[in-house]
């Protein structure tokens, strides 16, 4: 269970997912550099075992699951800072769904709650809480 929650960063990082931040930086460099790499990412089945990528290496990818669906957390509230902070990168950005595995309806509520929490100074707009 604990491993499952750790691994979601893997699909974004092409070289291997040690951490969430690593996955993010990888994604960013993709967007800046060769976009052809991005194209191959699109049609890939979400969370499914990935095909061979650059270097011919194959990665085993655990299926990502939505934390809110699994733990049956229905109330995504702006007051629950501890919960929301799990889905905010260190830079203060909302972590994309492809990294966290949150399902669309929950991501929608989550992003709304994060934005509300930012407005009342519970979460930072940029950077981490000092």
């Amino acid at each position, binding site marked *: 269970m604990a491993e499952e929650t750790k691994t979601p960063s893997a699909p974004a990082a092409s070289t291997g997912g040690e951490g969430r931040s690593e996955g993010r930086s990888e994604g960013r460099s993709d967007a800046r550099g060769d976009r052809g790499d991005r194209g191959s990412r699109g049609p890939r089945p979400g969370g499914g075992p990935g095909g061979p990528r650059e270097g011919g290496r194959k990665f085993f990818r655990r299926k990502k699951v939505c934390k809110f669906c699994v733990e049956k957390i229905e109330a995504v509230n702006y007051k629950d800072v501890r919960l929301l902070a799990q889905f905010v990168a260190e830079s203060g950005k909302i972590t994309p769904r492809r990294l966290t595995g949150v399902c669309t309806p929950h991501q929608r509520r989550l992003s709304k709650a994060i934005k509300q929490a930012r407005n009342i*100074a519970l979460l930072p707009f940029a950077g981490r809480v000092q």
Partner: protein
Amino acid sequence: MNRSYEVMFITRPDMAEEDLNKLISTLESSVTSAGGTAKSEVWGKRRLAYKVAKFHEGIFVLFIMGGTGSIVHEVERRLRVTEQVIKFITVRTDEELKRLDKIKKIRDARKKTSVATPAAPVTPEAGTEPAPTTA
């Protein structure tokens, strides 16, 4: 139109407790006199995620109320006028609460049906179990 809202506001960290209580009670009385319901929760001093009005921390207060939109208008006006309040946010909660209620109902119903089916064969055992204790 009866709706429920919650207003969270932050006051300056150096605000005296009696002043805060006074502010809350005036807000509550203004809401109740307008025909609404009010409840408040003081979260206490907390660190702010970013600097607000040159403060790094503030006293957080959650003010839960029910009523019409004009009540919200009045409360927000009061908060804006009060200099001690450095930030506030109003969130409408009734639709979310309704949604959560609905989900809870569905889950309870499902639990009942799943419990009811195994309960039928269990009942004779349950009947025999308390018997020794009484005897």
